[in-house]
């Protein structure tokens, strides 16, 4: 029951947040230089006075602002994200078409970064102050300072151009005619570099967090008790310290998931990965505002879903949460 209630309150909060983003979107379009009619006319590729006046009437731009706002929000509630004149398709169709690729990429990057980050953090904390620790912390510091898109470009240069190990471009081999298992393997090969480079920065974040958290929990009394009982150090580390140290890492991972979606714009641009991030990049050059704002709204929705999922995971690994609320 407690969980159902918590989910319901999270969903209501999510709906309010999305509504607020829709309103923000509306005012952003109005803040754009020139009114939306001239923007639309520009997107459609022609702009004489008569056409702009027609467009104003057609899209209700001659109505008062609050009527326009109500209409815009109404459209979004019914999942109408507008029309992309540049691509000749409704924005929602464009996004749905590309969403799977982005989900595959961000989820892979998320798991890679979380697992590798936690593993490295635990390894560093076990040898704190020694060479291994210095090496891991130093590498993390370096990844932490590396721009995502540059890491991606350098990975293409080394692993794709120089060594020829992995493809550095696209989602699958075009015209290969693969199907079933072969196709999955082909996509996996294309996925490795984008997922690794997108995960690199976040791996550094989770590693630092895990290390700090492990060291902090190791100071607590129940760990001393476990040690006094004569348990093996590796067992104490796994069962007693790690389980408690993971809690803040999970919280942080949920918050960071949102940044992962933003980072996908960069990674997808470098690797020509056909997701919504690449769609946003293409729309930037074309000044296709409907699509840009549509991708923005959908990525915010993805973040909210990520956050609700983390919340649930958190409840599972720490039953105390449900009782407190």
């Amino acid at each position, binding site marked *: 029951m407690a969980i159902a209630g918590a989910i319901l309150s999270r969903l209501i909060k999510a709906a309010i*947040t999305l509504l*607020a*983003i829709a309103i923000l979107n509306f005012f*952003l*379009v109005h*803040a*754009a*230089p020139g009114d939306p009619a001239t923007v639309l006319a520009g997107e459609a590729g022609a702009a004489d006075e008569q056409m702009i006046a027609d467009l104003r009437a057609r899209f209700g731009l001659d109505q008062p602002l609050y009527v326009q706002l109500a209409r815009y929000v109404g459209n979004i509630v019914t999942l109408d994200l507008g029309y992309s004149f540049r691509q000749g398709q409704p924005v929602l169709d464009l996004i749905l078409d590309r969403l799977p690729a982005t989900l595959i990429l961000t989820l892979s990057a998320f798991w890679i970064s979380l697992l590798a980050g936690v593993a490295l953090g635990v390894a560093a904390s076990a040898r704190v102050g020694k060479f291994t620790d210095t090496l891991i912390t130093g590498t993390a*510091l*370096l990844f*932490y*300072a*590396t*721009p*995502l*898109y*540059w890491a991606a*470009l*350098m990975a*293409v*240069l080394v692993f794709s*151009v120089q060594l020829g190990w992995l493809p550095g471009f696209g989602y699958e081999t075009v015209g290969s005619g693969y199907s079933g298992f072969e196709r999955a393997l082909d996509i996996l090969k294309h996925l490795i570099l984008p997922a690794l480079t997108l995960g690199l920065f976040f791996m550094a*974040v989770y590693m*630092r*967090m895990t290390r*700090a958290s492990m*060291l*902090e929990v190791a100071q607590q009394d129940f760990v001393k008790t476990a040690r006094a009982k004569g348990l093996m150090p590796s067992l104490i580390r796994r069962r007693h310290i790690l389980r408690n140290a993971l809690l*803040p890492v999970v919280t*942080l991972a949920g*918050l960071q998931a*949102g*940044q992962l*979606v*933003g*980072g996908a*714009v*960069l990674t997808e*641009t*470098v690797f020509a990965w056909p997701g919504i991030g690449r769609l*946003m*990049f293409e729309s*930037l*050059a074309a*000044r296709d*505002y409907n699509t*840009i*704002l549509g*991708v*923005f709204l959908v*990525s*915010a929705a*993805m*973040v*909210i879903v990520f*956050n609700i999922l983390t919340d649930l995971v958190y409840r599972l690994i720490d039953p105390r949460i449900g009782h407190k609320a």
Partner: protein
Amino acid sequence: MTLWKRFITNRGALLGLAILIAVILVALLAPVLYPRGPWAMVQRPFLVPFTTDGLPLGTDTLGRDVLAGLVYGARVSLLVGLVSTVMALLIGVPLGALAGFYGKWVDEGAMRFTEFFQTIPNFALAIVLVAILEPTLTSITIAIAIVSWPPVARLVRAEVMSVTKREYVDAARLAGLSNMHILIRQVLPNTVSPIIVMASLMVATAILLESSLSFLGLGDPNIMSWGFQIGAARTVIRSAWWLSFFPGVAIVLTVLALNLIGEGLNDALNPHLARKGRS
């Protein structure tokens, strides 16, 4: 003096400081080093590095000096990083301070507002803002400030809350000082050290954000920046690696330096917490 001593005995922080000073010097001396500016076409395009005198890092797709671009790029990175951080502090510090000091509905309202901005994927918001406001140095700086202030507000709120509980604040109240006076003169000065640490890390993040926006073609079209150099060279990565390599190294070094300084400051300001509990 002990603070400074603690800071300079930290090897990482010292290295960071040395790199940062070098970058600042280069940025300041740019017009002296390259009076013709970063856009001048000086030689034939695609000159390989270390092959021509006077052009140690080679030339780009249009025959511009890569090193001159790097030197001018340092100006933009540092300027945007610094100004956007100051702006983010100007939004986050007052909001967090009021929320933490007054509590109740002020706190509730301010925190809901902050939470909303934290939910929005911040890089995507920055892209949308710059794309719609037209890419200029000002719009980029504002966009970065808008996406960077929420953590400041949360930090300041938490600090102000804990400081406000101390006895000397009660004493100030008894002495009849006004709320504003207590908040500004008695409470805020005691929250400065964590804010300084956070600010130095924020400059680093802002530099990464600025370079990412420029990489996507959302930089100010009149200003040479590191992100722009990499973005322009993206399509020729197979034939001219150096065009994207060197600006990237510049970004990594600068951001690394700022992170090292931030950590050094953190350790120096909180000696009892040093080497512990950071994320």
